[in-house]
């Protein structure tokens, strides 16, 4: 690893100014009561003392993006004949996500296995991923909704980040994680970390100690599959849910989308937009049939996808980064940790498994 660097608090704005040359720098900033990632410009003070309300997911996976433009073009010689031209969007501009947390950066690793696999490469995602760097802030302390340590991460996890910054007295210690990060740390504003590095290590260790005991999710893939037909369990788990979908939109690892066309006259765009499996329309078929007709079915899919299907497909990796936003921002406090834990604790016996669909615990 490259030598650790130190950034004085007083130089933060100047460094952001350097980083913003030739790239869009997204920093967490206040927007009403929320903290959201928006482009930095002179005078913006990033909010670094708390986790942002939303994840920086849209930096790589925009809430809405043009897949291509289409135009219907009439042949002037033969007005009945119309051809269609498709035009792909421009290459994405370089970007930097500054001040996200380790859970935010880790979220993209969960995307990567789906959007950039040897079998399937999503060119829009891959281009943005390549164009985006992450300077991540280690969490000095945990919230009561945090459970990163239960899904294989931690408050100073470097996975998915290009550089990690740790708050210390008078500024930040910066460590490069990737070659991209090494480039970012070449600024003359940064000095050698010296003895600040030891301080940073202490901050990281204290953060780990501040975490509450981790829920044990071992065995969640099998436990959730075993509960699949137990609709009593899922109706109980989803009783409070109001199907608003906030959990999916705020989640750094939720990656489902819809594709829709928008047409105006002879031109239009095909859009990809975030969609969410908590909505009835998500799986509604043209025939009127819906394989997930109730919120219980839909919550089962959301929890099942993260803690069962995805891990079964991707060698045990849980599709959750433990950021806790789905708990913190849920209007009715549905807690995914509780649901998974209940499923594991309620693991059915062999006789119970043999019971018909709808059997209760």
């Amino acid at each position: 690893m490259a030598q650790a660097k130190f950034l004085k608090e007083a130089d933060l704005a100047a460094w952001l100014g350097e980083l913003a040359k030739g790239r869009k720098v997204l920093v967490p900033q206040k927007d009403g009561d929320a903290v959201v990632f928006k482009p930095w410009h002179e005078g913006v003070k990033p909010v670094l003392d708390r986790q942002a309300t939303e994840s920086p997911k849209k930096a790589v996976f925009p809430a809405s993006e043009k897949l291509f433009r289409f135009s219907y073009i009439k042949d002037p010689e033969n007005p009945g004949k119309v051809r269609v031209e498709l035009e792909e969007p421009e290459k994405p501009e370089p970007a930097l996500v500054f001040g996200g947390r380790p859970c935010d950066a880790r979220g993209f690793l969960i995307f990567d296995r789906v959007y950039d696999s040897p079998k399937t490469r999503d060119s829009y995602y891959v281009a943005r991923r390549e164009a985006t760097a992450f300077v991540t802030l280690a969490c000095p302390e945990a919230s009561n909704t945090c459970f990163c340590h239960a899904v294989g991460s931690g408050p100073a996890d470097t996975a998915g980040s290009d550089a990690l910054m740790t708050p210390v007295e008078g500024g930040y210690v910066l460590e490069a994680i990737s070659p991209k990060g090494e480039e970012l740390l070449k600024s003359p504003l940064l000095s050698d970390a010296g003895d600040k590095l030891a301080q940073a290590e202490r901050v990281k260790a204290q953060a780990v100690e501040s975490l509450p005991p981790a829920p044990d999710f071992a065995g969640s893939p099998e436990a959730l599959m075993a509960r699949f037909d137990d609709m009593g369990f899922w109706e109980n788990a989803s009783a409070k849910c109001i199907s608003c979908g906030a959990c999916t939109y705020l989640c750094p690892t939720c990656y489902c989308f819809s594709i829709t066309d928008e047409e105006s006259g002879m031109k239009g765009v095909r859009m990809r937009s975030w969609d969410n499996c908590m909505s009835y329309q998500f799986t509604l078929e043209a025939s009127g049939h819906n394989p997930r007709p109730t919120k219980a079915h839909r919550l089962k899919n959301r929890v099942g996808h993260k803690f069962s299907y995805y891990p079964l497909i991707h060698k045990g990796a849980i599709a959750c980064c433990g950021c806790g936003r789905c708990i913190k921002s849920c209007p009715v406090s549905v807690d995914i940790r509780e649901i998974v834990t209940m499923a594991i604790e309620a693991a059915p016996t062999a006789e119970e498994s043999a019971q018909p669909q709808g059997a209760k615990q």
Partner: protein
Amino acid sequence: MTEMPNLYLPEMATIIETVQETPTIKTFRLVLNNEQRMKDFHFEPGQVGQLSVFGTGEATFVINSPPTRKEYLQFSVMRAGEVTARLHSLNSGDQVGVRAPLGNWFPYEDMKGKDIVFIGGGIGMAPLRTLMLFMLDNRADYGNITLLYGARSPVDMAFQYELPEWLGREDLKTTLTIDNPAQGWEHRVGLIPNVLLEMEPSAKNSVAITCGPPIMIKFTLQALKKLGYKDEQIITTLEKRMKCGVGICGRCNIGTKYVCVDGPVFSYAQLKELPNEL
């Protein structure tokens, strides 16, 4: 964009012919505008494609022409939603987008040397047509081939222009049925599962391939079980509300399986392994 294929960008194609099969089903024969791509286009029987009508969207349909007949790609579309309604308004010369081939296909290699029983209901005949014509074009590879094709009424029967040929072939045993008697109808009358039970196709060294409305599939499976067919001898195709078609968007999963990439073709043995979410 980076130098990699764009999974979401359709190829442009021209409709060269349409056939109004039934009041609700219209068939589109189309060729890709890029002649070389059309020549090189390779697909397997049972694979699907997404048809685009720009301004309305995309929907998934099986390519129901067989890979052995490459002068055009054929899609039969039942009018059910917005995309299919706009597709139905198109005619020869109109442009559509195509993303294909997508998904898996019928395991026709494993079926070599076996007797084949096709059981199609309504628009469910479309995927069966692909495989059936493919097998007829490779006739020596297969044993007896039987077709049971049913629709509600004579007017609901697609591919009518082909039925005389299918009925007349000596190497294909075709039975047609409708739900209720109709004037001028010379074939069977009765629900598909009942007719199938009367036909009693032997399960020995056989594969049954069925596609149709869910209620028909349900009772057809029961009939096949009565006739002694084992789960692994029964093959069907699934439909879901597919969007991306490449296993990403998250709509068509049943547990760990994505119908758009792990399907649409499944054996009944495989279906039984899936969580109960059809």
